[in-house]
């Protein structure tokens, strides 16, 4: 029999954090595995509700990260993730008209992101997509805040390079102001 207290607390936690945990799982392993990973994460959370820190999200993402690493074969995760990355880029195709430039820019950035390593993509998206502060993102990946800043800086540079190469090659046409902003970030 579940006591009402823990259940209420867990429900609040689920409502507040499930979308973020699911989003993290999609960005690391694709939609095909995300539901499973997110649900498994909350199973662990249910059993460890008393150990949960007040700032629960970094803890939950840390659990999801461990589940991904320990419970899934790397090739299965890669396969699912590749489908996801392809879907992000494809979602921006077949668009014409006034919004085409913006859509092209969006596709270029997502394609550049897709060329990065799994580790770089995680560092960038923890902050940009999952809304974590650097100190909390550091907790998720298990390093010091200082180390996180160093790694994030490198990852950001590699994303900039991937974007610049895409623009120079003409593989993706970036609006000039976007390229400027990329160059700006080197200064």
């Amino acid at each position, binding site marked *: 029999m*579940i006591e009402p207290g823990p259940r209420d607390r867990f*429900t609040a936690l689920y409502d507040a954090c499930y*979308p973020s945990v699911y*989003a993290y799982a*999609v960005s690391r392993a694709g939609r*095909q595995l*995300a539901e*499973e990973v997110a*649900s*498994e994460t*909350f*199973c*662990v959370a*249910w059993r*460890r509700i008393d*150990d949960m*820190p*007040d*700032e629960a999200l*970094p*803890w939950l993402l*840390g*659990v999801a*990260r*461990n589940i991904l*690493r*320990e*419970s899934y*074969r790397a090739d*299965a*995760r890669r*396969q*699912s993730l590749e489908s996801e990355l392809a879907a992000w880029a494809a*979602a921006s195709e077949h668009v014409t008209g006034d919004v085409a430039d913006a859509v092209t820019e*969006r596709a270029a950035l997502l394609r550049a992101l897709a060329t990065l390593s799994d*580790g770089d993509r995680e560092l*960038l998206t923890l902050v*940009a*997509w999952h809304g974590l*502060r650097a*100190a909390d993102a550091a*907790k998720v990946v298990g390093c*010091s*805040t*200082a*180390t996180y*800043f*160093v*790694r994030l800086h*490198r990852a950001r*540079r590699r994303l*900039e*390079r991937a*974007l610049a190469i895409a623009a120079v090659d003409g593989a993706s046409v970036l609006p000039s*102001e*976007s390229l400027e*902003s*990329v160059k700006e970030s*080197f*200064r």
Partner: protein
Amino acid sequence: MKKPDLMEMLADVRPASLTPEDDPRRLDRIIAAAARPSVVAEPVPRPGRGRPGWGWGAGVAAAGLAAAAILVPGAVGDRSAEPAARGLLLAAAEQTVNAPTGAGRYWHSRGVNSASPTDRTSDGLCRDETWVARSPKDPSWWIVHSWTRLGDVKDALLPPEKGVWSSEQAHFTCVRGRRAVDSTDGATPYLQRLDAFAEPGSSWPNVDGRVVSLAEIDALPTDPESLKEVLIQWQVPGVSDERRDEILFEQAAEMLLELPAPSGVRAALFRLMADLPDVRSLGGVRDPLGRDAVGVARRSSCDQEFGGELQVLFDKDTGRLLSVKRLDGERGCADLRPISWSAVQESGWTDESPKVPADRS
């Protein structure tokens, strides 16, 4: 108009597929699966996971198994630190166990720190003090007396337009152990409330991100196996044995560097490290402040993208912790380079109070 930052641009292209579909019954399914005792108890081998399209129910069952394996603190493994490292650590434990713990209102430590990111120039050492209040009613402080100045990007990928890099990126930082603080103007002394960090979740003291109270530190067991169980409980669950050992080494180093653990607990931390696999001896070395030391080190994630090494340097005769040094690699452990170190100049309990301006106290 301000040009968009790359991270802001990235935030703007967050794919819609990251948003989960509404499923009003999902929560009930999770709780039912998590509460199912058979899931936790049966030691079934891990199936070949990761087949796309599995129902999550099966996944939950498997996760229960993984969690069950994780939640039980591991027994002492067959492997421990290499003999030379083990000898150094057990000697340090012997020297530490009877050292006076001391008493007072504040745990005060004075230190020197260096941060040298591989891609920025850096200049100068951060000298700092840490004041951890015995009573939760008193504030705890981190006081920075001098900063490490971070300079220009060293190996940028595009050339600067006018041949020089802007100094706008230069700023000031202090990295102590696993905490870091930045300043844009480099003014000193800089005071940071440690128990009310601007960044939520960074409150102090903490061990590997887990907030702890001084009462908890005082109450830690002095038997290394029991201490290990507590530290594993403090870790984020779900890790492999290898990663668990890696975090244990981090936790022990952090506690020895930063926290007022009683001498019996400090001795147990040395013994705990002596029982960890892959800990190697650095032998006799000089610490970053030029003091005679002996050291042990442990590498981690060498087979992954980002490798690292943590070095713990201590006094051979007293077991007193002198410095902790961190190396980071971009190609596993093939290109490890020092990125930061923190040294302890003095530490102990005192009845003195930190000098804090009236408007901050």
